[in-house]
């Protein structure tokens, strides 16, 4: 057994030292697999980033209330008297002032343009209340100040500011009923709210001539209290409302785009991987054929067929691994943290997010590389082991 291992080691080292002599052919495996892994990691990191942005929004001990039957805040309509009843539902934590920690919000869209373009983009405007800072304590004003109720003032999310033009503190933007002044900017831990503009709900409703809310977000007594809160809400005969835990609601709003990008990523990568397998097979067949005499000689001096098989497989795997690492590194350098914004069809609004090349995606890429390398090495390895020694020696 030990001698077989020694043989494997010796033959593999010989093969690997020989790689520089066959650099051109060997690069086919490395570059081919780097391409597959790069595309796979880049596309999945896009899906991952989008998912992370929506899934990181909200906390399990907060609930969002929408009109029964509505899928999102844009399509939900909650009348003023209903909003008051919702906020009185038991289970909502009380603030220091003794009032429920809940905000009734109005969710509308306005138009923003990207720098150097005039095409409209659907930007979310969230009309809210000052106590939103207590309901969503993750929100931090990072520039300027909070809006003043009653005035046409707005604060802008960090990501919206990065994606669209003319959203700096002091700029004016037409939201409804003329221009509003941007008086501050906020961050909220990289969640979806950073793609929004926030302003006073009452001022927004009067400017939009639409005196209804879209949602109510409430801080619950505890995450466990959600079921009781939901039951109390849905059994109230005066209301037809639905409640969801915040993270569940926001995750559900990312499903369609997530599925689309993931399916695209895997489809493209699987097809590319098939192409790369053919390339790897080609390279390894060529490697075996250029070493026919060498393999014959090894066999003639007593090396078994197993070391030959293993050495070819190992060479393929080492080259594949190099390709995988290269592809993963390129994807990481080019895309990690890259900010983009797209239209989320489920909410009809722009969501900005960062590509996230996470460690598990890198592992996945390297695993794919090894699988491609293993398949590409297997058949040539079997051929190498079956070379008749006499013919092999004679072929030189």
């Amino acid at each position, binding site marked *: 057994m030990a001698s077989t291992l020694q043989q494997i080691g010796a033959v593999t080292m010989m093969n690997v030292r020989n790689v520089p002599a066959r650099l051109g052919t060997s690069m086919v495996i490395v570059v081919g697999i780097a391409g597959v892994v790069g595309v796979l990691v880049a*596309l999945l990191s896009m899906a991952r980033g989008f998912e992370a942005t929506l899934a990181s929004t909200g906390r399990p001990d907060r609930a969002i209330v929408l*009109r029964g039957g509505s899928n999102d805040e844009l*399509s939900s309509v909650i009348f003023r008297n209903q909003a008051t009843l919702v906020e009185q539902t038991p289970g909502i934590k009380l603030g220091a002032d003794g009032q429920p920690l809940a905000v009734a919000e109005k969710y509308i869209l306005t138009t923003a343009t990207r720098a150097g373009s005039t095409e409209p983009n659907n930007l979310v405007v969230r009309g809210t209340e000052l106590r939103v800072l207590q309901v969503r304590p993750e929100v931090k004003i990072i520039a300027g100040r909070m809006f003043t109720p009653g005035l046409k003032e707005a604060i802008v999310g960090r990501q919206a500011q990065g994606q669209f033009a003319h959203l700096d503190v002091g700029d004016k933007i037409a939201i409804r009923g003329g221009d509003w002044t941007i008086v501050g900017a906020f961050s909220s831990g990289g969640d979806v709210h950073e793609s929004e503009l926030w302003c006073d709900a009452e001022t927004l409703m009067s400017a939009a001539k639409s005196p209804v809310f879209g949602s109510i977000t409430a801080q619950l007594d505890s995450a466990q209290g959600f079921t009781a809160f939901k039951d109390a809400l849905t059994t109230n005969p005066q209301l037809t409302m639905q409640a969801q835990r915040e993270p569940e609601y926001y995750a559900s709003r990312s499903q*369609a785009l997530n599925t689309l990008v993931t399916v695209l990523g895997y489809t493209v990568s699987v*097809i590319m991987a098939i*192409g790369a397998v053919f390339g790897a097979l080609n390279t390894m067949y060529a490697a075996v054929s250029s070493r026919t005499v060498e393999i014959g000689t090894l066999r003639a001096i007593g090396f078994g067929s197993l070391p030959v098989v293993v050495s070819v497989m190992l060479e393929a795997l080492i080259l594949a691994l190099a390709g995988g690492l290269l592809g993963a590194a390129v994807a990481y350098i080019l895309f990690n943290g890259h900010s983009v914004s*797209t239209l989320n*069809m489920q909410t009809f609004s722009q969501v900005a997010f960062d590509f996230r090349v996470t460690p598990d995606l890198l592992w996945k890429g390297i695993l794919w590389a090894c699988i491609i390398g293993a398949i590409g090495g297997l058949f040539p390895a079997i051929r190498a082991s079956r070379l008749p020694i006499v013919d092999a020696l004679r072929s030189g």
Partner: protein
Amino acid sequence: MLKFFPLVWATLWRKRTRTILTLLSVVVAFLLFGLLEAVNVAFSNGANAGDSHRLVVGGKYSFTEILPLAYLQRIRSIPGVQDVTHATWFGGVYQTESNFFPQFAVEADTYLTVYDNFRVDPAQKDAFIHTRTGALVGRSLAKRFGWKIGDKIPIQATIWPKVDGSNAWDFDIVGFIDPKNEAERAQTDVMLFHYDYFDEARQFGKSYVGWYIVKVAPAADPAVVAAAIDKEFANSPRETRTDSEQAFNKAFIKQMGDIEMIISSILGAVFFTLLFLTGNTMMQSVRDRIPELAVLKTLGFSDPAVLALVLAESLMLCLLAALIGLGLADLIMPALAARMPGLDMSPQVILGGCGIAVVLALIVGILPALRAMRLDIVNALAGH
């Protein structure tokens, strides 16, 4: 020239395994090219679709604002407006949210007049106009869900509850919509029903519509008419923004982001790796044949002729693979188009693919071809 075809063909298959494996990787690359380019073309068709004489009138601040129904008469009286109709986004769910398709509450006869690119059987159109709860659906949509004329389709409202608070709406299928131009099939994947029925039954928002669509008279300038419409409602509580249908579609598709860039980047990565692979095969193929090429030269083949032979081999390999790959994409396309309307292997994709195959063949063939051309006969023969 053609008499050399068998020679090139034979040398191509000199090392069968190598050629087949190379061919297969190039086939895979062109399969991917065909599929992704079809997506690209579908998006750019969507962005360029639209009649330049059709205008979309929406809210000034956002397309999602609603506008008073009373604007209908005022728009109709603006000079240059030939026809005007309106639509309201219903946003209902059929069975599950993932079955998404647009539903519009419309004014039946004027809508079909303005959308003169929709084709509806006259008897079905008549049935639609006279059935209060009737609905027209795109034919491919009907096929997707197995709907027939006479079916009652339950749609769950997400925006518009009925007066009694219920979200359950039922519509009777009375006919199908086909496009006049098959390339516009994706635009017909909608459900149309009566605004009158909708407006009377809904709980709130009564006498408001989503947007207006204007058909501009042939002699009028659409830009002038659009400006006149926006001027009519300027400084009113509900101001408007009027765009040509083309500009509107283009802006909408642009909102999804730079799809063309994503697709080009993927294809860039694919073809970059392919250059290595095919280039390597061609290099090996020439290296293996040095003595043969020397013999050809001895027989009197000129240097340019040898160069041409190697390039022809590369060209044959790449074009053959491209055609197989694009052919496979064409076979798969109908299955994909069922899930993503508008996908189609257009001639421009196939021509584009062949063009890329030629460029690829020249790039990967040129170095080996030059090497073959510069062979010194004596050394090449002596070397073996």
